[in-house]
């Protein structure tokens, strides 16, 4: 395990702790729970092995599932997000970005980073809440959960990004 993977593992543990101990107990208007675990995958730089990214995504989701009792919902969402992340990053990365481009507000600009993070979070929340509901019977509630969770999680992403990057730089 090289340093990069060590950092990723540390990021995973911290995010998992925040998610499990804090965010899992947050239920905005009764049913919106943000899934900050997605931030783990949003941070992945471009040029990472696709399979490695998929495994990290699956592991992140699996950890979440194990500690939250959600049995497969987060791992399915995180795996799909890991599959789509390179394409989304490519879509919003600057034209002159190199092969190991790190997605952040500084490199992408606030607007593009926000959109990128929002779409990533949307994929994760959509899969998670659709599997959670597992029916379209109460679709307004599902839609509200997906939309609300995505928005709150994106804002938390931005907040974390601002906090972490500020310290780093």
């Amino acid at each position: 395990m090289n340093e990069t993977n060590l950092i990723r593992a540390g990021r995973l543990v911290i995010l998992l702790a925040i998610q499990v101990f804090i965010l899992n107990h947050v239920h905005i208007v009764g049913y919106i729970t943000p899934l900050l675990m997605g931030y783990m995958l949003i941070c992945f730089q471009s040029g990472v092995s696709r399979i490695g990214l998929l495994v990290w995504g699956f592991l992140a989701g699996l950890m979440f599932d194990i500690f939250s009792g959600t049995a497969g919902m987060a791992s399915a969402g995180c795996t799909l997000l890991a599959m789509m992340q390179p394409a989304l990053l490519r879509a919003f990365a600057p034209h002159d970005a190199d092969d190991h481009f790190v997605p952040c507000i500084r490199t992408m600009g606030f607007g593009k980073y926000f959109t990128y993070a929002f779409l990533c979070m949307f994929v994760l929340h959509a899969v998670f809440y659709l599997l959670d509901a597992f029916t379209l019977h109460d679709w307004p509630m599902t839609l509200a959960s997906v939309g609300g969770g995505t928005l709150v999680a994106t804002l938390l992403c931005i907040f974390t990004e601002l906090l972490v990057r500020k310290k780093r730089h």
Partner: protein
Amino acid sequence: MQNLVDFLVHYKHWFVFLLLEAISLLGLFSFDGYQKHVYFTTANGMVGSIYSAVSSVTSYLQLQTVNRELEADNERMRKQIVVLREKLRAVETNSTQRVNGLPLEYSLVSAQVVNATLHRNNNLITINRGSADGIKPEMGVVCSRGVVGVVHLVSTHYSIVMPLLNEQCKISCRLRRSEYFGTLEWRRGRVDVTWVTGIPRHAKVKKNEVVETNGYSDIFPPGIPIGYVMKIGDSADGMSYLLKVGLFTPFQTLREVSVITNYTQPERRELEELADSLNASLNN
């Protein structure tokens, strides 16, 4: 082969993705929770729908066989109906049957009219049941519509019935609604009309009111319909009504009749005869 290997290597992340998703979903459905329940319910529903569709098609294809079987069944049942109808007819001739207005406890012997006169003063009807069938004189004869007459003479296998269409036949009757009683008498002429005398003037008689037996004689039980009031008139002495009554019994087409065999009450008759004889001796 090389192309296949290249293809697999090129798209290996897709296979990994599908594998990981499959593991995730497997975990989701293996967990004994809501999703598993919904999955199995939906899956069962879908499989049920498919089975139902297959069953519909199979049933449709088997219709020809089913039709043949039904046709065979129908044929068998038609034959059975003929046999049973014959048996029923045989049983009916020696058993009780329901007659309009007649309580079930009365025992009836069915008979068929074999001869009848309708246009004399004293018409008579011949039926194909006699003393061998338990028929005795003075028994009442009815049909499904109402009263027919009274058994007059009996041989072993035949009986002569004095119908309502006989000037000698006088039957005690009453109006169903007001229960005023009178006597039914026939006068030569129409075979569907008879007359009731003796209804007092103060009785309120209405047209179309039903006239029925009143049970005063020991021939007919009370309540057997006879006819309906067609016209209300006065008797010759003006002391009572003379009612024109349309008969319920279709004498011109009469075929099936029944004889009431268990209504005759010998004890009552003996007592009444004794009273009559005492009256006669007192008068003398």
